[in-house]
């Protein structure tokens, strides 16, 4: 039970050796109704050859964070503070031209929806070749060979003929493969996968996940894997970051976080997941309430209006003060380690297994 507070074997969020290092990232959008704090003081690290999973509800800031890493946020309506260091280079302050050189090259993104992620107006081959020609200066023919090779690698049959097809001639699964192939054209060292399998059926999903793992082993890329599917995360990620209301609320290795979660929100996430071997009549335990408005986030701990354990914290601490997330294996919660352990063993664990 000592593992609950152990920090030694955790992913050290400090040190310049991290390949991608995000420090105190704040992304704000100005809207007509006010300022939306989409990401509010987020820090994490990703190492080469490792996969970081990010989970959280819709609107918790997962996608915004990663779009910001790529510099794809709207510069007119949003402000970005903090540091994003990729291999030592700060991406927040980088010039647009430098970002263009990195995007699709050193870092690439796989988008969620394969049906809309490809342009309907150009052939799949052209869309794959473009970034390769731009980043490597390859000729059209070289780019085609590379694209065909990548299409083959992601398991598209007859890639040479398929090269000239338009996206609408591809099935959903094939389009997702094409999107993955496109992201991998220039052997990116950082790959951000934003719910790459959500739109796919389970068998295709398994193939895609296998593919990503194989590619990671081959190229040693760092992967950020965004999803709200904890089953997928358990399979894919080495480390896990749980996000809520634009902040990280729990961090640790995937095994630690899923096996011994210490944040009430993570408990809620795990309890609301159906079990395969569960009784048909067994009720799921959804987290009460709805995700907070980022326009006007709750005071103190943003989760406190939905949290069932605020009464165990002395005074009005939950509503008044925002709990910090310590480095390493940690959760941003005012509950003491003993309280968490008791609650987990008494109330949460029986629901999980």
């Amino acid at each position, binding site marked *: 039970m000592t593992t609950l507070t152990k920090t030694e074997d955790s992913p050290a969020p400090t040190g310049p050796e991290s390949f991608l290092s995000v420090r105190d990232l704040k992304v704000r959008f100005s809207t007509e109704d006010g300022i939306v704090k989409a990401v509010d003081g987020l820090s994490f690290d990703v190492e080469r050859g490792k996969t970081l999973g990010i989970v959280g509800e819709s609107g918790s800031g997962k996608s915004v964070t990663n779009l910001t890493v*790529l510099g*794809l946020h709207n510069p*007119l309506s949003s402000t970005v503070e903090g540091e994003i260091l990729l291999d030592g280079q700060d991406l927040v302050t980088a010039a*647009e031209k430098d970002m*263009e*050189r*990195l*995007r*699709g*090259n050193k870092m*690439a*993104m796989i*988008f969620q*929806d394969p049906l*809309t*992620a*490809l*342009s*309907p*107006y*150009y052939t799949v081959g052209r*869309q794959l070749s*473009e*970034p390769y020609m*731009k*980043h490597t200066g390859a000729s059209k023919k070289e780019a085609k060979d590379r694209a065909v090779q990548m299409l083959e690698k992601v398991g598209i049959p007859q890639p040479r003929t398929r090269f000239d097809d*338009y996206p*609408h*001639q591809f099935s959903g699964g094939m389009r997702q493969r094409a*999107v993955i192939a*496109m992201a991998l054209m220039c052997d990116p060292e950082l790959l951000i996968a934003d719910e790459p399998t959500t739109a796919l059926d389970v068998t295709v999903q398994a193939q895609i996940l296998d593919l990503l793992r194989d590619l990671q082993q081959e190229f040693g890329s760092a992967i950020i894997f965004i999803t709200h599917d904890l089953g997928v995360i358990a399979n894919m990620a080495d480390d896990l970051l749980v996000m809520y209301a634009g902040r990280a609320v729990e961090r640790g290795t995937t095994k630690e976080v899923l096996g011994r979660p210490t944040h009430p929100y993570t408990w809620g996430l795990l309890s609301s997941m159906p079990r395969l071997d569960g009784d048909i009549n067994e009720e799921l335990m959804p987290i009460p309430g709805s995700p907070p408005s980022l326009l006007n986030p709750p005071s103190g701990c943003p989760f406190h209006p939905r949290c069932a354990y605020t009464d165990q914290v002395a005074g009005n601490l939950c509503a008044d003060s925002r709990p910090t997330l310590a480095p390493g294996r940690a959760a941003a919660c005012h509950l003491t380690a003993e309280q968490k352990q008791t609650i987990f063993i008494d109330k949460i664990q029986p629901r999980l297994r």
Partner: protein
Amino acid sequence: MLQFILRRSVGAVVTLFLIGAATFFLFVAAPSDYASLACGKDCSPERLEDIRHALGLDLPLATQFWDFMSGIVAGRDFPDGDCPAPCLGQSFYYSENVWDLIVDRLPLTLSLTVGGIVCFLFVGLGTGMLAAYRRGTLVDKVATGASMVLSSFQIYFLGPIVLLIFVYSTGWMEDPKYVPFTQDPVGWLVGLSIPILVMSTIFTAQYTRMARSSIIEQLQEEHVRTARAKGMPRRYVFFRYAWRGAMIPIVTILGIDISALLGGGVVTELTFSLQGIGRLAVDGAVQKDLPLTMGVMLVGAFFILLMNILVDIAYAWIDPRVRLS
């Protein structure tokens, strides 16, 4: 593609035939007596009978319909003279063949249309693209504001003001007039510049707004973001990805606008005292000159059908999903 064009052309011919039939029966069913209108003021019953006979109004309806339709293809003979194919009948008011009247007026309408399109496409789409590219900046705000104001500048409002300033008080320009392009290209341009510019103003404003909004909409498409995520430069993504999709609604409206302009810009013609197809249509309606009305209507319908086909071809060129289905 060829098959598509062929199929659509056949469809267009059929549609034109149906429109022709509809106009013909409308014409027969019209309450005003066609012969007495043609007869004029001092009309005697004998003369009326003569005219009825000459116009073939004493023939059975089916024969009349056949004569009208075959006249379009083969031409007809009227007592007042020949009407070679395509014969749309004779105008009472002008005592001329309707087709000759239309052919006479078409160059002006064509000039206004072409000049207008060149103006509002270049200026309107250009400004709209610039505003979308520099969204939120001063350029965008000025362009959006100006197009908002200018899109309410109707031709009959702006026209007299421009005439007053540039023609009547300063004398910098002459009254707008039509000089055939083949005779004097410079004179053609100078003579029509005021009508073209005035007419284009409102279109330019509308196309600016349309181009801006549809590009901005496209820029939010996921595939545009994917293209940016691949590291493609902003300008490349703007022109290759966003613009391509933005063209579809623009082409749709453009087709409608061009066919409307070719059918006659009545307001422009009246404002600047020009003789175009629109004027002809108004004359036909006011003078109860039914053959003329029918003729103008058929020509207008022809342009609408032609533009529809061209718009569909443009769709197929822009969007491969249309091409294959």
